[in-house]
Every structure is written in structure tokens, then in C-alpha cells.
């Protein structure tokens, strides 16, 4: 016997769909509940963790690095607020303190560096400034970068420039570095002595004569570099990138 299409079948289908929907909502609700519970547990654990590991956060650079990576992976900025969820860790305090020290160190040597300091040098000076207990306060370049990036909220007085190949330079004078200046800095940081010439800009960057001349005049005009006129062609030197300066510092 052939079954005919009847109203009963349609009704049954509707009922089945409704049941499924209800079941779905149930499931969603219980999942949400579970999630909330899990989050609460997580938070509790995090607090427990922070109480027992507070010292590690201050002392262990490796730990901070992993923590930062974790936060980045889940899209959380642990420094966004001093009052938020993550503040229990005391992570913020560590970086705020470091930030203040970065400002102090940079301003103290502005007159010598022209307002530019290479990240490694900044680190050495910071460690020196943090005093004898430096063994307990190991800080990495990542830490400084993190702290320094936070300083950018004060306007353009503090900016970190990436010069490629893991090299960074911290600018501690107000003013924007133009694209040209950043490019020149990058080129200089790739040389052994930290200097560039007019010809280098033309050959290695493919810049036309006037562009190279103009940008060099600009870096000189802003006091970022020194000129040496006793070679076959004038060369432009960045004290912040000159290796001889820092070898004597550490000696």
C-alpha cells in the first residue's frame, strides 16, 4: 500500500523540528553555563597562581615572555587596565615601573645620543640603573619593547622604530621620524660603523640625487647625526649606532 501525502505527516515533521530546536536551546544553555563555570574556575586558579608566583613575574623573564605570548594568542592585552581581570597578576605594575625607568634613562642621555638609542644599549643602561640587585631583575628586550610601546600614549615623544633583523631603536625626542629618516637609519644600522653616504643612498635605495641630498640635510638639521667631511665623500654618522661608543661604556 502506498502512503499518501497527508496533513498528518506535515504535522509530524513540524513537531520533530520543534523538539530539535528545544533540544538545541537546552544544549546551548548548558554549554554557556559550563563555560561560565570554567571561566570562574580559571579565574580562581589564576588568582591562586598569581599569589604563589607573584615573585616569578617580577624576576623571571622567560615566564613573562611566555605569558605575553599566551595573551597575544588569545587576544588579550594584560596591560590595558590596572583594574581589569588580568591585574591580579601584577603584570601591569612591572611594566609601568619599567616604563618610567625607560623614560629616565632616555632623557638622561638625550644630549649624547641625539634622542635615539639602540634597544640593546637601552637594556644595558636600564640594568645598570636598576642597581645591584640586577640578578633578581633580569629584563629582556621584549620586556622593554612592551613597556616602551605603552609609552606611546603620551604622544609622539616616545616611539620605537624597527630597523629590521630584530634591531630596534627608541626615539625619545618629540617629532615624527619620516619614512626617509627611518629608511636611512635602517641602512645605517646595517653597516658596521653606523654611517651612510650620499652615494650609498643612491646606490642601495635607488634614490635620485635630490631626494638623497634632501633627506640627509634633514637628519643633520634635526641633530640626529654627525657629518664627517674628511673622507673621499662626506659621511653621516649616528652616534646611537656607533659601536665604539658602547664598547667603552661597558668596559
Amino acid at each position, binding site marked *: 500500500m502506498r502512503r499518501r501525502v497527508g496533513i498528518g505527516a506535515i504535522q509530524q515533521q513540524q513537531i520533530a523540528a520543534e523538539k530539535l530546536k528545544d533540544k538545541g536551546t537546552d544544549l546551548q544553555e548548558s554549554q554557556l553555563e559550563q563555560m561560565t563555570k570554567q571561566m570562574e574556575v580559571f579565574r580562581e586558579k589564576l588568582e591562586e597562581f598569581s599569589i604563589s608566583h607573584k615573585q616569578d613575574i617580577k624576576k623571571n623573564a622567560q615566564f613573562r615572555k611566555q605569558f605575553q605570548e599566551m595573551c597575544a594568542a588569545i587576544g588579550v592585552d594584560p596591560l590595558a587596565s590596572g583594574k581589569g581581570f588580568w591585574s591580579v597578576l601584577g603584570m601591569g605594575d612591572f611594566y609601568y615601573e619599567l616604563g618610567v625607568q625607560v623614560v629616565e634613562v632616555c632623557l638622561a642621555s638625550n644630549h649624547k645620543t641625539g634622542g635615539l638609542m639602540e634597544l640593546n644599549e637601552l637594556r644595558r643602561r636600564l640594568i645598570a640603573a636598576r642597581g645591584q640587585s640586577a640578578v633578581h631583575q633580569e629584563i629582556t628586550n621584549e620586556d622593554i619593547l612592551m613597556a616602551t610601546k605603552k609609552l606611546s600614549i603620551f604622544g609622539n615623544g616616545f616611539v620605537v622604530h624597527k630597523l629590521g633583523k630584530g634591531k630596534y631603536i627608541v626615539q625619545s625626542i618629540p617629532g615624527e621620524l619620516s619614512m626617509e629618516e627611518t629608511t636611512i637609519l635602517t641602512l645605517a644600522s646595517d653597516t658596521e660603523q653606523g654611517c651612510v653616504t650620499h652615494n650609498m643612498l643612491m646606490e642601495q635605495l635607488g634614490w635620485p640625487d635630490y631626494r638623497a641630498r634632501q633627506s640627509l640635510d634633514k637628519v643633520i638639521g634635526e641633530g640626529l647625526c654627525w657629518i664627517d667631511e674628511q673622507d673621499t665623500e662626506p*659621511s653621516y654618522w649616528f652616534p646611537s649606532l656607533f659601536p665604539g661608543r658602547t664598547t667603552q661604556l661597558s668596559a
Partner: protein
Amino acid sequence: MTDFQWPWEYTFPPFFTLQPHEETRQQQLNVWSELFLKYLKHLNKFTVNINEGSFPLYYNESLNRRLSPSMILQILQKLQSTGHAQPLDKKRQEWQVYWHTLEEYGNMIYDWIQETGQTGSVCTLYEIANGESTEDKEFHGIDENVLVNVLRLLEDKGRCELIEMDGSYGVKFF
């Protein structure tokens, strides 16, 4: 004598070229002035000539960079403005340079005279500059020409009197 410890700037090639940027130039001249005084003190040298081309202070041989005479003159003029140098000839080629100002030297010598109770007695310039009893003093080894200038200054203040004897000087302190 131990080797002189050059500052890092001495190995920085543009340090030998006068900088066009105002602030950088001031910074550069400050470092040079300090270096001049330190180096000359190290050598215990009190006179310099602008045209002494191979003098290590003006010429970094390994770097092949040198100060131009006009830049040396600028540095010396800066030192003159703080009382640490003065020209010896009208063309300003030959200069007297001293670690302490004449005033400072004067006070040191006068203090020493009082400490050792030599007021009222006459001593020779050699005693002051090279005598055994001044060996631990800052002014020991002072150039005699500079010393005469220092004593002239004290004389103006009425603290001593220079006496010329057979072409050399003696001095009486009050």
C-alpha cells in the same frame, strides 16, 4: 706614565669635523675642551701651538682624521672664555692652557703658604713648582711661565710680591 684613556669620541670620525647643527656643535666643543684639558694635564704640558700637525690631540693617526687649525682655535677660545687658556702671541698661534684657572692655582698656592707658615719669607719659583714639599699638591709641576702669571694675580690682590733676582724670580708672601 700610564697610557692616556681617550674618550670614545676620539674614535668617532665626525668628531674631527665641526658640526653644522647648533646643539650638536656645542656638545662637540664641550667634549673637545674637556679632552684638551685632560690630555694636556696627562702630559703636564702647558703650551700648545695650533700648527703642530702631528700632535696626537689634533691628529688621530689610526683614523686619519685631524682637527683643522680654525677648529683648534675655536676650542682654545672656548677654553679662554672659562679661564683655562690664553694666547701668547698676537696671531693666536701659541697658547697657554691650564687645568685649573689662574685664580684656582693662586688660592691653592696661597693656602699652602699659609699652612706651612711661610708668610713673610721668600721662596723661589722652583721651590713652589718642583720642590719636594709640594709633591702631593695639585700645582706641583706647574709651568714656570704659568706660575708667574698666577703670582702676578696674587700680587694684584696684595698677597705677595714678585722679586726679580739675576733674571729669575723670587716671591715673598704676605
